[in-house]
């Protein structure tokens, strides 16, 4: 490089000025050689970095879908809250005070519990049972969802889970078994959202089943493809 080529001229050349002399052309050749020889990231690294962006895409897609289905979700949530209040009313009604243990027969009458599920509830009620708020089912475990809506519903649950930074495992059935793991403190909120999602998708639930598992951070759902019907919130 000759002394004629000043730092300013070099900057200008690299910023796109055309070469005017052989020296300048040589210099741009060196730059081009350097660029051409630069290594590229491996496919493994690409995959690793691509995966970083995926939750953002899913969450954004989930937000868009939520906006579209907001009215249906709100209606379904109201129905679920009403169901919860109905169960609580049984507990605090004339047959017992606020501290009275729940009688399995009462729960069965209120929720149409099957004998097997009633046994389970009976175990949980016991002689020194907690109040019915502990027995209120926020998210039933067994759902019948229209076959055409089941995939979209699972996608929606996937988005909800991603937004709460949880994990989801889906066993393609039939039936489809979905296991969602989220932070323990957020599980009930996620459960309510999932219930609303499935209700909005036209799903009907077996209200005697409970998606909460022994683990405080996990929900387990069984989705069976079927025909549409009203949500089972009675």
């Amino acid at each position, binding site marked *: *490089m000759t002394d004629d*080529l*000043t*730092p*300013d001229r*070099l*900057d200008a050349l*690299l*910023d796109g000025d055309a070469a005017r002399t052989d020296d300048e052309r*040589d*210099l741009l050749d*060196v*730059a081009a*050689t*350097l*660029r051409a*020889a*630069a*290594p*590229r*990231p*491996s496919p*493994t*690294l*690409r995959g*690793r*970095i*691509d995966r*970083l*962006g*995926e939750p*953002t*895409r899913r969450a*954004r897609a989930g937000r868009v879908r939520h906006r579209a289905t907001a009215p249906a979700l709100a209606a379904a949530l109201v129905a679920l809250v009403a169901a919860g209040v109905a169960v609580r009313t049984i507990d605090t009604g004339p047959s017992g005070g606020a501290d009275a243990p729940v009688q399995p027969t009462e729960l069965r009458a209120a929720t149409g519990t099957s004998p097997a599920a009633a046994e389970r509830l009976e175990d949980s009620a016991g002689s020194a049972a907690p109040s019915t708020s502990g027995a209120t089912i926020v998210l039933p475990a067994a759902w019948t969802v229209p076959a055409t809506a089941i995939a979209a519903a699972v996608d929606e649950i996937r988005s909800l889970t991603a937004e709460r930074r949880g994990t989801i495992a889906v066993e393609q059935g039939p039936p489809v078994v979905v296991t969602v793991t989220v932070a323990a403190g957020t599980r009930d909120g996620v459960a309510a959202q999932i219930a609303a999602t499935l209700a909005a998708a036209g799903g009907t639930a077996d209200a005697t089943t409970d998606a909460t598992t022994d683990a405080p951070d996990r929900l387990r759902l069984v989705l069976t493809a079927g025909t549409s019907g009203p949500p089972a919130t009675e």
Partner: protein
Amino acid sequence: MTVASITVSTIRRPQPAPSFADAAAAHMDAVHRYLTQMVRDPDLAEDLTAATFERAFTRWHRFDPSRATALTWLIAISRRVALDHLRADRRRRAREMRVAGGEPAYVDPPELSGLPPAMAAALDRLTDVEREVVALRVLLDVDGPSAARILGISPTACSTHLHRAMTKLRRELAP
């Protein structure tokens, strides 16, 4: 509309921020190139590139497109990631030397795969800051003021380092 009002409306219009996924796809190659040039070790460069994007992902909400381009922002992060690593590595080596009670041994820099030997040798003869300036200005096409800001030096110093580096490279690589 007067010139003044046009200026105000331009300033107030928020810059559209790209998504993290788009920025990562667009600038992954550049960040990797920069780090390869900086640490001279392909495997380490891959690890540091991944670390850069992991750090950028957790801080993406802080990225302000009105203050810097996504590339400049990512390169600034990658530089901190690399410097943190190099400092930690230096401390580790010093500790090991103290324990071993010996003299620090010279370690050959790993060979950069893909580069012609003459070019790799020429790049090795540059100083650290010269290599960084070449990476930013030549490989990544970052403009002078942005490169100077990333390196924490004045634009004049950046131009001088670049001139010195390109002079050396041209002399080494001349047929």
